[in-house]
């Protein structure tokens, strides 16, 4: 019996196991490629007011979330369009919020979870600030 036919016989007899491990291997491979392509640790988003306009110079606070403790926040400032970006941030779960003088934060800080420590992440919803009405 040749080597080729022996291998073919082994493949035929273990079709289920081969498919199972191939799917697992393929999934791990695809996931590894995705991780490599998206591991700059970027967290980005927008700060907007109630009309959807970007809030310039808003202070954005990012904090690592644990089950018991919250670390010191990392602070950045939004640009003139309300856009902010953090780079090289290694945290899995975090809370983020924005503040600026003359504005209130109706939602407080919002919690997000990333799929790996340095997963590039764009906030699905902008951070909302509402302008205080002068009394």
């Amino acid at each position, binding site marked *: 019996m040749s080597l080729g036919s022996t291998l073919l016989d082994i493949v035929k007899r273990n079709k289920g*196991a081969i498919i199972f491990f191939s799917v697992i291997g393929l999934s791990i491979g695809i996931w590894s490629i995705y991780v490599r392509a998206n591991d700059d640790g970027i967290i980005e988003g927008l700060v907007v007011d109630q009309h959807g306009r970007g809030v310039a110079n808003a202070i954005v606070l990012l904090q690592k979330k644990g*089950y018991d403790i919250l670390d010191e926040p990392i602070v950045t400032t939004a640009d003139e369009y309300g856009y902010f970006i953090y780079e090289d941030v290694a945290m*899995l*779960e975090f809370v983020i919020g924005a503040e600026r003088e003359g504005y209130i934060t109706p939602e407080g800080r919002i919690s997000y*979870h990333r*799929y*790996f*420590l340095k997963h590039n992440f764009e906030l699905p919803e902008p951070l909302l600030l509402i302008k205080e009405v002068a009394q």
Partner: protein
Amino acid sequence: MSRGRLKRPVWPHLFLIPLTLVMIVPLYWVFKTSLTGEILYTYPPSLIPKNPNLFYYIDVYYWIPFLRYLWNSLFVSAIVVVSNIVINSMAGFSLRYSFPGKKMVILIFLSCMLIPFQTTIIPAFLITKQFGLIDTHFGLAFPLLTTIINIFIFKSAFDAIPKSLSDAARIDGMPEWKILFRIFLPLSKPAIATNIILTFLWSWNNFIWPLVIIRTKEMQTMPLGLARFLSYFEPSSGPLYAFTILVIVPVIIVFLWNQKSFISSMISGALKG
């Protein structure tokens, strides 16, 4: 009724389906909680997971050295499974022969089965220490390298093989070890499957022995990791249940892989009179 087709009664299924549900629901609940993190007392309880996600599995990966635990458990289980197949098959094969004191050997085997492992754990520990196997993979596998019940499983499987086969091989000049590994083992797949499932399960779930002989975090196995995880993160049900799922998945895979042979072994054992 069509020719060649038996009509199966429906009524057993009326009992079997609810029974199956009763068995599956707790497992499903663990799986659901691992995806949602809902605590047990959430009211009203819902069968369908709300906002399922994989974040708790990711937490497990980052919070504990999961891959290390997995490797330790898999490696130890592999040692146990291979050694059990080799040693038990040889022991079962030897019990096919008549030799002086055979009955006594079987009696000793049977009486040893009656002694629970907890009572021999101190001598086992001292012997393992003498061999210098404390805190090693081989030390973890040591008490399970051979298991008596599996020797009898091999013996009963080998007893069912006609003696003429081994006689013919012997006349052809085949040595005994070849008769065992080339003729008897390939004909005893159900016994091998039963050995794989039982020993893998025992090794995988073993808690007390690793607790006794393991001293470093790097050598901990999955059940020890689960206990450690529970003590660290008691209030967080999501990651805990995710870890539980990860602990039981390999056992389910091994069982499904050997299911057919295992069941045929059980049935053949039940039919022997």
